[in-house]
């Protein structure tokens, strides 16, 4: 076929051919194939969309209303924007209803809404529905759309073609292109440049389709390409250049490489000129015009032809020089001409938006490897900005598939491009997406491989660390969204292990701590807060972490640790010189923590209260920055004065100093009452003053105090329950005998106290562990006719008796409660005590029948409670109790030599524990602690049965469910024992248990290396501590206090 050489071509034609359509851009930002929106309108629409994105729909509405008023013709666009906002929220039904209300379903407005709906379906992954709407547009206008709709039709169908290309439906896209061409007949001179663009893109698509097609289809496609090329080459514009390249490509596909080459050679200078013009215009306008250049395809083809020739020569052992020339160009005067490598890299680097770029990249790598094998050294320089653009384009395809949830295809796409760009900025951004693809496809081991690689490989990369850490967090949250808490936690553990310096680490650790603290899992929460405190002293969360650590330690009863933490917190507040408002509250907490440590540390607590009184007595003290601070500090001051008095009153050593301390106590409390007569602490202070004067044998002063209490605070519990308060205070002061006298008087029925008051008093005594005294109170009122008194009295009487080890009596009281009040709210509590009482009675019962009967009573009680209990936490507690009951029964049976019955009871115990372990919901914070206890109590039973594989299996399961749990040590210990037992028996040892001192295969591990440590966990290192597998390093109290640094709390602190 002869081609007329064209010597000049129109720049205006190139400019006029500048057309790009963004597939799913909103009306404001997308480029249109035809027509276009008034720029002023477009600006307002962009403004409204931006406001919507910022979550300001009301402001967006103002802008749209204004637009409507000024540009009534924009009504349709305004509606579309409103509808788009609704589609983002998934409100498809409402949008369909709006569309249905349009009076003319074939108007542009209606179609704009319908296509917005289609785009919404696309965004939500409902491609079938999206297609159906676009197809209906094509069906509605089978030939020519009406003139008024033409531009809209062209833009929409063009968009549809792009959508289909993204969905990899090339036949669908071809069909759309053909409809576009049909819609622009030759007579439509105004739109001929559009027609030519459409033809050019159609030709491109057909060439792509031909390359992978079977021979019959290929021939058909190539014929169509020739037809298009013949039409295009009659106008001297950009598309003329395209037609030449198309024809050359067709020749190449048909194997006529020489013809292809000669076509390109003939028109090379014109093609180069076109390319330069487009690049210039691209630089001027910032539009990606280079993707329209025929040069990309041209150079790609040249590269392919050269590569092909070189490969044939290599297969035939052809001349090396010739092969190198084809692949890498010829060296002339210090510079190389273009070989396949240069052509491919040029397309890859300079035309990344074209459809040739990806393949060019792959082929460039193939050529590069071939040259390296031949001993060449290759140096390729691509500037960083260009490289970023290339990567973004290369990854775009894979990301589009990911966004479409085509995960298996996305995996292939990602791996292909990661092969080209393994360690760039974009790589780190897409690796979490790759992991998520594997999660979706259920290829868990692949997901873990990618995630661990992302963490290990990039955590120390200075430029990529932050993105990599974000990526690992994204993977963790991907698991979280899919309700896979175990994998989520593993991913976060990976994050914490590798990304200590990540800006988010402290915040995430803190958040984890908060979540566990809310679930009351204080031990686990503490670990997270402690990491923040230890590793991030400069973080804004540091002080909060210390505060929360102290709270957790308090809840766990670890008051010594609480003291250390609060001390650290207080010292941290002192840094910087300027007094901080929180200082007083922290010191108050510290004083309280000292008190919880017991009498030995009372002086330390007292000293802190004294310091607080000194700090806050001046109303203009520097520890307040606002009125709220002042109010809070005032309360702390009053509380400190009160507590100071309490502490003085409780000091009793040496005995000769006790009166002096009590006098100081009275003075402190009187100072409080004088300074703040309306203080919330005043009633208690007066009550205590009265008690102290009583103890000091000053009855007149005592009476004066009690009188003042009743006059000034008549409605307070202290005034109403003076005797009870007196008795309680005497107990606190360790004056137990005096306290008993007061309570006996109260319980003796001297008439002044109601049954309710006696019940409250006895209950408080029970809580304080004063079971004997409490029992007297309950005995007094257990005969009450009032259910509100009798019912709790029976329960607590039973509890007191059980605590006093009077099991038979306790059992009687509790069973009376259960039979008299079968629907009692105390059923669960009573049944647990019954279980304990029966277990203890059974332990001593030598007669098998009676022993059997007594355990049955317990089982009945628990079963009754199970029927009653609704909350999962309570049911779990009862299930645990069943296990314990059987375990105790087994012990009792063993004691009395009933081996078979003991085994049966053990089996029942294991079954109960295991049903809890396997079936209960570990994510429920009320249930979780009982599951954990079940593991711990089940292990010894399974060990006793020598079911070693089960022990290991349970240990693995525990470690996964309770990472860092309170029985972690036990898990390792039991699993280690089981592993050793299996090894000795020559059996295969299941793996998966962390931190045991048994390796599955024997090797030379265990020999010390140069660090002086043993190779395996579990053995002591040179500091005398056990390492991560072993026990924690517990010092005896004296050394622990010394090791804490600073003053040992309590010791040496004198009032």
């Amino acid at each position, binding site marked *: 076929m002869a081609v007329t050489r064209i010597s000049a071509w129109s720049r205006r034609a190139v400019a006029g051919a500048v057309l790009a359509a963004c597939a799913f851009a909103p009306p404001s930002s997308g480029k249109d194939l035809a027509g276009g929106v008034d720029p002023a309108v477009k600006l307002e629409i962009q403004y409204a969309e931006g406001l919507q994105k910022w979550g300001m729909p009301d402001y967006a509405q103002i802008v749209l209303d204004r637009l409507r008023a000024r540009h009534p013709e924009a009504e349709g666009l305004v509606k579309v924007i409103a509808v788009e906002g609704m589609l983002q929220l998934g409100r498809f039904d409402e949008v369909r209803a709006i569309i249905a209300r349009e009076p003319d379903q074939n108007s542009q407005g209606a179609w704009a809404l319908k296509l917005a709906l289609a785009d919404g379906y696309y965004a939500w992954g409902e491609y079938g529905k999206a297609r159906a709407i676009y197809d209906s547009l094509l069906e509605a206008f089978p030939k020519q759309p009406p003139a008024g709709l033409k531009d809209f039709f062209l833009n929409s169908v063009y968009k549809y073609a792009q959508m289909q290309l993204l969905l990899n439906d090339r036949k669908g896209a071809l069909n759309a292109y053909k409809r576009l061409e049909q819609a622009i007949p030759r007579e439509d001179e105004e739109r001929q440049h559009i027609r030519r663009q459409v033809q050019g893109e159609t030709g491109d698509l057909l060439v792509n389709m031909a390359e992978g097609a079977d021979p019959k289809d290929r021939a058909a496609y190539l014929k169509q390409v020739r037809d298009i090329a013949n039409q295009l080459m009659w106008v001297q514009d950009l598309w003329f250049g395209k037609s030449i390249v198309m024809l050359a490509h067709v020749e190449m596909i048909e194997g006529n490489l020489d013809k292809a080459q000669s076509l390109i050679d003939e028109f090379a200078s014109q093609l180069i000129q076109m390319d330069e013009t487009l690049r210039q215009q691209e630089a001027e306008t910032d539009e990606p015009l280079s993707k329209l250049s025929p040069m990309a395809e041209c150079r790609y083809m040249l590269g392919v032809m050269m590569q092909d020739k070189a490969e044939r020569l290599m297969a035939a052992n052809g001349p090396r020089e010739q092969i190198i020339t084809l692949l890498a160009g010829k060296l002339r005067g210090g510079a190389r001409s273009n070989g396949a490598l240069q052509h491919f890299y040029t397309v890859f680097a300079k035309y990344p938006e074209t459809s040739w770029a990806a393949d060019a990249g792959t082929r460039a790598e193939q050529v590069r490897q071939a040259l390296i094998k031949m001993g060449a050294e290759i140096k390729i320089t691509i500037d960083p900005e260009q490289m970023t653009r290339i990567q973004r384009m290369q990854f775009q395809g894979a990301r589009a598939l990911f966004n479409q949830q085509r995960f298996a295809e996305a995996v292939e796409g990602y791996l292909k491009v990661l092969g080209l760009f*393994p360690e760039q900025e974009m790589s780190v951004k897409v690796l979490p997406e790759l992991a998520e693809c594997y999660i979706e496809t259920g290829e868990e*081991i*692949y997901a873990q*491989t*990618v995630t661990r690689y992302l963490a290990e*490989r990039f955590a120390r990369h200075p430029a990529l660390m932050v993105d990599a850490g974000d990526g690992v967090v994204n993977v963790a949250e991907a698991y979280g969204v899919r309700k896979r808490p175990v994998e989520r936690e593993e991913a976060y553990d990976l994050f914490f292990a590798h990304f200590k310096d990540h800006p988010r680490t402290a915040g995430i650790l803190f958040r984890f701590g908060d979540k566990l603290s809310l679930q009351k899992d204080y031990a686990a929460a503490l670990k997270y807060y402690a990491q923040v405190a230890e590793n991030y002293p400069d973080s804004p969360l540091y002080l909060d972490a210390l505060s929360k650590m102290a709270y957790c330690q308090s809840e766990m009863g670890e008051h010594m640790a609480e003291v250390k933490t609060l001390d650290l917190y207080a010292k941290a507040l002192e840094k910087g010189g300027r007094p901080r408002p929180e200082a007083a509250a922290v010191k108050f907490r510290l004083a309280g923590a000292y008190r919880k440590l017991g009498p030995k540390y009372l002086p330390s607590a007292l000293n802190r209260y004294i310091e607080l009184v000194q700090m806050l007595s001046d109303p203009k003290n520097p520890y307040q920055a606002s009125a709220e601070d002042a109010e809070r500090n005032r309360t702390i001051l009053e509380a400190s004065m009160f507590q100071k008095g309490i502490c003085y009153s409780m000091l009793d050593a040496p005995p000769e100093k006790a009166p002096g301390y009590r006098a100081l106590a009275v003075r402190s409390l009187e100072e409080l009452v004088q300074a703040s007569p309306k203080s919330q602490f005043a009633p208690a202070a007066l009550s205590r003053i009265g008690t102290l004067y009583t103890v000091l044998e000053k009855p007149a002063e005592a009476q004066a105090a009690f009188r003042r209490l009743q006059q000034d605070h008549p409605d307070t519990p202290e005034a109403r329950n003076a005797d009870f308060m007196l008795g309680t205070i005497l107990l606190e002061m360790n004056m137990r005998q005096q306290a008993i006298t007061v309570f006996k008087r109260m319980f003796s029925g001297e008439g002044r106290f109601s049954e309710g008051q006696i019940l409250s008093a006895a209950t408080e005594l029970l809580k304080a562990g004063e079971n004997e005294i409490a029992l007297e109170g309950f005995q007094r009122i257990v005969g009450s006719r009032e259910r509100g008194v009798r019912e709790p009295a029976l329960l607590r009487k039973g509890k007191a008796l059980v605590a006093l080890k009077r099991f038979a009596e306790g059992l009687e009281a509790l069973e009376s409660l259960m039979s008299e009040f079968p629907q009692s709210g105390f059923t669960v509590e009573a049944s647990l005590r019954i279980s304990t009482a029966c277990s203890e009675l059974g332990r001593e019962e030598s007669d098998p029948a009676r022993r059997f009967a007594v355990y049955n009573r317990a089982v009945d009680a628990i079963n009754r409670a199970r029927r009653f209990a609704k909350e999962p936490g309570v049911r779990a507690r009862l299930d645990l109790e069943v296990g314990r009951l059987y375990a105790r029964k087994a012990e009792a049976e063993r004691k009395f030599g009933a081996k078979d019955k003991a085994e049966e009871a053990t089996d029942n115990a294991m079954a109960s524990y295991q049903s809890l372990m396997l079936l209960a919901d570990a994510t429920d914070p009320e249930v979780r602690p009982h599951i954990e206890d079940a593991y711990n109590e089940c292990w010894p039973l399974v060990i006793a049965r020598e079911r070693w594989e089960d022990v290991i299996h349970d240990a693995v399961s525990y470690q996964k469910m309770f990472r860092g749990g309170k029985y972690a040590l036990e898990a390792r210990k039991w699993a280690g024992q089981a592993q050793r037992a299996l090894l000795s028996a020559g059996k295969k040892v299941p793996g998966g248990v962390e931190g045991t001192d048994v390796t599955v295969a024997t090797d030379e591990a265990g020999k010390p*290396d140069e660090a002086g440590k043993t190779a395996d966990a579990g053995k002591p290192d040179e500091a005398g501590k056990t390492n991560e597998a072993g026990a924690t390093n517990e010092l005896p109290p004296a050394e622990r206090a010394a090791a804490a640094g600073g003053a040992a709390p309590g010791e040496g602190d004198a009032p």
Partner: protein
Amino acid sequence: MNMQASARRIWKGVACGLVLAAAATAFGADVEGVIVKKDSGRLAGAIRYLASSKEYLVTSRGARDVTLRVPLDQVARVEVPPPPGLGEAARAVRGGQYGAAVPVLENIMKDYRMMQHDVTAAGYLAFAYMGMNQPEKALEMCRRVIEGNPDAAVSAEMAPIYWQALLKAGQDATLRKALDDAAARGDRATAARAQLMRGDLEAKNGRHKEALVDGYLRTALLFRDVKEVQPEALFKAAQSFDQLEQHPYAERMRKELLAKYPNDEYSRRLASGTPGG
């Protein structure tokens, strides 16, 4: 890794500046050269290093001999000509003639202590000792090199020898750390090799999942650009998947191995059913 091939490139990896860590107490010999100080000052003369006081003695010969003491922390580098015999010894190591090379290299290490070439000699000695099956000594030499240049531990030239020495010396914990380090910050080829070796250690201990996730599968999936290790990674990944009874994955690995590397030794092993690793 081919030791001779590595030995050919060793000097590039290890000879990179002054060794600043003092490890021995032996005196070096007097060597003519130049001390370049951190303040850019230069002192030429006969140089000797005193390990006990961590300083250099520089004696300049003139009408009168003047000896100056320069503390180690003031020195940027020491420039001395290559010792006689170093080149020949290096060639001997590359040629596998360790017996001839070792005494020469040991002398150079002694005489040129803290004068640049001791590190070069240490590097060649590491290779030689491994060749002579003396891993402890090789390890000592590796440590000398790494002390002067921590990045040598993850370099393509030094890392494989270092790992082999650790493995043969039974220092599994240190080896594991070295492999983790290389996997994290070595170049991609070194990282890939470290991962494979890590996989071998895990597989040896029956931890096949770990062998895959942090070893073979990671290399096969995410280090496709390091083509030379792919056949081994695919082969061993298949073996580990089989151990875990995940046969479809194992099959996937085998298919890829046979399709992409049909002429590789691992493909042949697969075809012949020979166990590998």
